[in-house]
Structures are given as structure tokens and as C-alpha cells.
């Protein structure tokens, strides 16, 4: 089971290492982790996408809550949140293939942000699943490099994660 956690933490030195240390120490497997400041500059928000059964998620939430600078932990409900991840994908591209790649970008609603004699770089901001689809489409052309931010997520509608 894949789940997404939003964690509000005090924006101070060493917090990220406390959180990431907890994951490895308690053998929790995470797929991605993204961190950034919130509307309140003293508070940061960490989004974690992880895998595990109900027991593991419950333990993870409880253990996170024990970390002193952790203010709030919320498990986002499947289907009731929006998630996005930014990726930059550099693909090998000869002049002959350029048109094909532009077509793929159009189809997937991706942006081409850099073109060189032998490469094209895509910028794609989407869910992790759609990014995977684009990667699959680009694979035959020869992917040179991929860089991803990790997923961030927010509740739909009025619901929110607040201190």
C-alpha cells in the first residue's frame, strides 16, 4: 500500500536528519521525500510518500509524532488530495528525431526547456504516475539524465494540514 504523509515541523537546523534517521532506524521504506517552508516561515512542511501495510503506517505516524520538532502528522486520504512532482528529463536527440520528441511533449503536456545539437530537456510537473509514463515514452530515444523533486501534496477543497 502506498500512502502520502504531510508532516509539519519546526523550521530549524537538524530536523530533516531527525526525520530521515527515523525512517532508516525503524526500517520504514520511503519512495520520496520533499521539504519546503510554509506560509508561516517558522514552519516547514515535509511530504513523504512511502510503502507499507496498515501496521507500518500507524507506527510511522506515531514515531514521527514523538519527534519533538514535529508539530503535526497527517495521512492524506486516497483520492482526496492533489499531488505533483517536478521532473527534468534530458533525452538524447538527433536533429532527425527532434520533431517526434516535440510531438510527445505536446501529447503529454510537457515543456521542452532546453534544446541542443544532440539533446532535448523536458520539464514535466505532474503526478508520479504520469511522470513514469513520460519516462517510458522517452526511454527508446535514450535518457541521459533524470532529476525529480519528490512528490508534494495538498488536500482538495477546504481540508488542510494546520498547526
Amino acid at each position: 500500500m502506498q500512502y502520502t504523509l504531510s508532516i509539519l515541523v519546526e523550521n530549524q537546523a537538524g530536523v530533516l536528519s531527525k526525520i530521515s534517521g527515523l525512517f532508516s532506524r525503524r526500517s520504514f521504506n520511503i519512495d520520496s521525500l520533499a521539504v519546503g517552508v510554509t506560509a508561516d516561515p517558522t514552519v516547514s512542511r515535509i511530504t513523504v510518500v512511502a510503502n507499507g501495510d496498515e501496521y507500518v503506517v500507524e507506527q510511522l505516524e506515531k514515531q514521527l509524532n514523538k519527534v519533538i520538532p514535529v508539530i503535526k502528522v497527517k495521512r492524506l486520504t486516497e483520492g482526496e488530495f492533489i499531488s505533483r512532482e517536478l521532473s527534468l528529463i534530458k533525452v538524447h536527440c538527433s536533429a532527425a528525431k527532434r520533431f517526434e520528441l516535440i510531438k510527445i511533449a505536446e501529447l503529454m503536456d510537457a515543456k521542452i526547456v532546453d534544446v541542443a545539437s544532440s539533446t532535448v530537456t523536458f520539464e514535466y510537473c505532474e503526478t508520479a504516475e504520469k511522470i513514469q509514463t513520460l519516462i517510458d515514452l522517452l526511454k527508446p530515444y535514450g535518457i541521459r539524465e533524470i532529476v525529480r523533486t519528490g512528490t508534494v501534496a495538498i488536500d482538495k477543497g477546504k481540508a488542510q494540514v494546520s498547526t
Partner: protein
Amino acid sequence: MISGAEIIVKCLEAEGVDTVFGYPGATICPFYDSLYDSNIKHVLVRQEQNAAHAASGYARACMKPGVCVATSGPGATNLITGIATAYMDSIPMIAITGQVRSDLLGRDVFQEADITGACEPFTKHSYLVERTADLPRIFKEAFHIATTGRPGPVLIDIPQDLQENMLESFEYPKTVDIKGYKPNTKGHSVQVQRAVELIKKAKRPVIVAGGGVLSSGAKLKLQKFAEITQIPVLSTMMGIGVMPSDHPLYLGMLGTHGRKCANTALHKTDLTIVCGARLGDRAIASPDQMGTRAKVIHIDIDPAEIGKNVKTTVPIVGDMNNVLKQLINDIDGFKINDEWDSEVKELKAHFQSKISTFEGYVEPRTLINKLSFMLKSKAILCADVGQNQIWCANNFRIREGRFLTTGGMGTMGYSVPAAIGAKMARKDRDVVVVCGDGSFQMSLNELSTIAQNNLNIKIIVMRNQRLGMVRELQDKIYNCRHSATILNDKPDFVALAKAYGIDSAEVSSNEEAEKFVKNIVESDKPFVLVCNVHPDTPSIL
């Protein structure tokens, strides 16, 4: 003007600290210089690990946070085992370490170690101080965090220059506000009600009491609850002392090295009321099965402990004192059926231990049992780790005193420094150490601390010339191949104790041993009694 170091001392004074345990070094020198003018007593241990153990013994004996101090680098890293031990046993502790100057941090200078990083898994929280002005807030928060909720060690790492910096004035904060730390102390009334219903329906309920009952000071409430309902009580290793050992409702310690009657009762029960225990693997060998056999009410201050090891029917998060008060109130004089009551009494009578002895040796279990009654009723017994720990856990008849040992970490060498801490906290109590010849040699340097401070601590060394617990394991599982468990060099511990100026004797029979114990408990001087124990004396029957 006031220096950072003076502020640290003032913070400790404001928290009512009267004793600290430590070992100085260059980066913590400013603090030590300020401490020189303070009324706070400093106990110089002989190795930093023992400062942490002593602080732990102190904390447990007087229910106040223990404070230990070390310098940067090796001083700090030596503390780690002591901090980890306190963490596993949920002991409130403040560990203060010196750190290299803040402008040199991260450059691998002399005696630099990332101690907050290294202690991350073993502390409830830690601080690497960045500004001298933060010190009062950090100390206030640290004491609050260490002592509230589930207690635990908090580390404060302070660069030397921040101890030297001068501030205009000092004011100790009156309140704490940590956004993410608001421990819940009162049990949810709906959950308490559900628990009461389960208890009233249960046919064969038992209470499993752990260290949480002691650390929240709820042992009298637990006794009261048990007496009203007549539910029998088992304890974990950390919970020993929640009931007097001879209380009719007390069945003893459970677990792999526990008493048969306790384990049998646990096997037969249909409702286990777990109070302040995390139920580690030594307490419950197969915790995953426990929740399927019987219903479980789990009361703990730490929500993360509930459901971690054992499947729980009714979880109650709260301070043991409050929850037991709620339960006593809501249970309304309910008493369990006589059938279970008489079955439990039968169990207790059936599993009376029969101990075999070896001629020419001390029988440790009989001696420990006798010792219980030669000491004053509020005596503090510090047991080390290994066979001696099990002998003590199952045979020391506790009355109003304490049983101090390391249940979670099982750190050899704990007993002697813990006794130093306990004695510093409670000069009025008998403080006795029971250790093995293995564990004694892990902290015998502290004989020096005992002698220097003339601490009235009696140390009983059960010498079987083996690392007995591991050797037993080798007998059972490794085909009697005694790899690295034989200590047959037989050092002269009596001469060694005397070299430190501590009186000592060696005995080889219970009669002799009891004669000595009777005499030494009357004296106000430390004593080391070396008891020769047969290597084949088992941990349990």
C-alpha cells in the same frame, strides 16, 4: 554581566539540581569553573559512561532528573552507552557536553565529535546550542521534555565559546511552549469506560505492570486497584517493586527468565491489563500471539508503545496515576470471581521454588532472599546484568524499596555507578549492589569514586568465574562450546578493594556470607563481599 557557563549553573540551580555526575575536559572547563562557586555537588566518576549510569541511578532513587556532564569528543562518546541505557529504560536525564568552539565546528579539530548526531537514536531530544542567549530557554525546555510524558534523556551540546560569551543579564523562563510537544496525561473517558466494561466481563484477568507505574509514582494506586478488584499482578523486569514481593496478589516477574506462576497465569488469562510496559521480547516471547489469545487493555503515556508489540483491544493513552485514578473511580468496587482467585492462589503455591545447592559455594538465590530481610525495608538494590540480574529479580523480596537494573538495554557494568547515583540521592537508604565477576570488572574503577566520597555502598560480587548468562546460552544452543565465557584468572578482588581503601572479604558458604552481611549492614562504610558461586548454578530453576 554573566557568562554562558554561569548561566548553565544558574539554570541547573533554578531546576533544583543538587548533584551532578561528570568528568571534566578542555571544552567543558568554563562550566566547571562556574560550578566551583556553586552549591551543586559534583561527583567525579572515573569514566564518563558511569556518569550517565550514576545520573540514572540518582533519577530513579529520588524521582528527579539526573544530570551528567562530559567534555567533547571521547568524553561525549563515552556517555553514549549510558544515555542509550537511560533511553531504553525511560529515565529522565539531562546530559551536558562541551563542544569545540562554534567557529571550528565541522573541521574535525581536536576532540570534536558530532555528539548530537551520534545520540540521535538514543535521546528523547537533543540541542546543539547556537547562541548563548538561547541557553535559559533550552535548559527550561530540556528539563520539561526529560521529565514529562514518557521520560527520557535530553542532550545539550554547548560549544566552549558559547560558555565564555557574556550576556547582560539572566532570567530563567517560567513557562515552556513547544508546538509539537503536548503530552496527553488524562486517559480518554470513553476508553476508560470501555476498559471497565472489559474488566467486568473478564473471567481470568491479570495486570502486567511495567516501569511506567514506578516512573509516574503510581505504585500505590496500582496496589489499590489490584486490591479492590482482586486481580493478580505480574511485573516486567522494570516493574519489579510495583508491589511488595510478598503481596498475596503478586505473582512475580514474567518472561523468559520470569517465574513459572506468572507465565502460567499469563497463559491462562482472558484479559491482560498492561500498565506502563512496552512488552519487549524478554517479557513476552511471542507478543504477536498474545492479543489473539486474550483481550488486551494497554495503558501507556507513549501512544507509540500501544499496538507496537501486542495487539490491543482497548488503548488508553495517559499518565498511569490519572488513568488508575479514573479506573478505580469507575470500577465501582467490582471484584473478580472467586474461581480465578483460588486458581491463582493454587498456581502460586504450586510453583514454589526448590533450590539445589553446591557444597563449598555460596547459593546466590538463597543469599539474595535472606539479604532482603537483613536490609531496611526501603533498601535500594542495584542489580547488574547477567545471571545475577535474574537471581535478584526472582529472589529479592522487595518491600518498600527499589530494584534498579537495566531492563531494556541490559548494559553490563550498570550496577556500581547506578548505586553511586542512588546513594547520592538517598543517603538515608541502604544501597546494595549485586553483580557478577564479569559485570563488576566493567566498572570496578568506580571503587575509587566510592572511596573518595566515602559512600556507604555494599557490593556483593557473585563470582562464578564465568560470563554465566552467555555460558548458559552456549550450553543450551551451542552444544556446550564455551567460547570466550570463562573468567578463570581469578583476580584477588579483596586485595583490589583494599587497594582502594575499601574493606572486603571472600566467602564460600551461605552461613559465612550471611554473617558478613549482618555485620556490614550495620557499618556506615563501603564493603565488597566476594561470594564464590558454583559455575553450574543456573539463572532459573
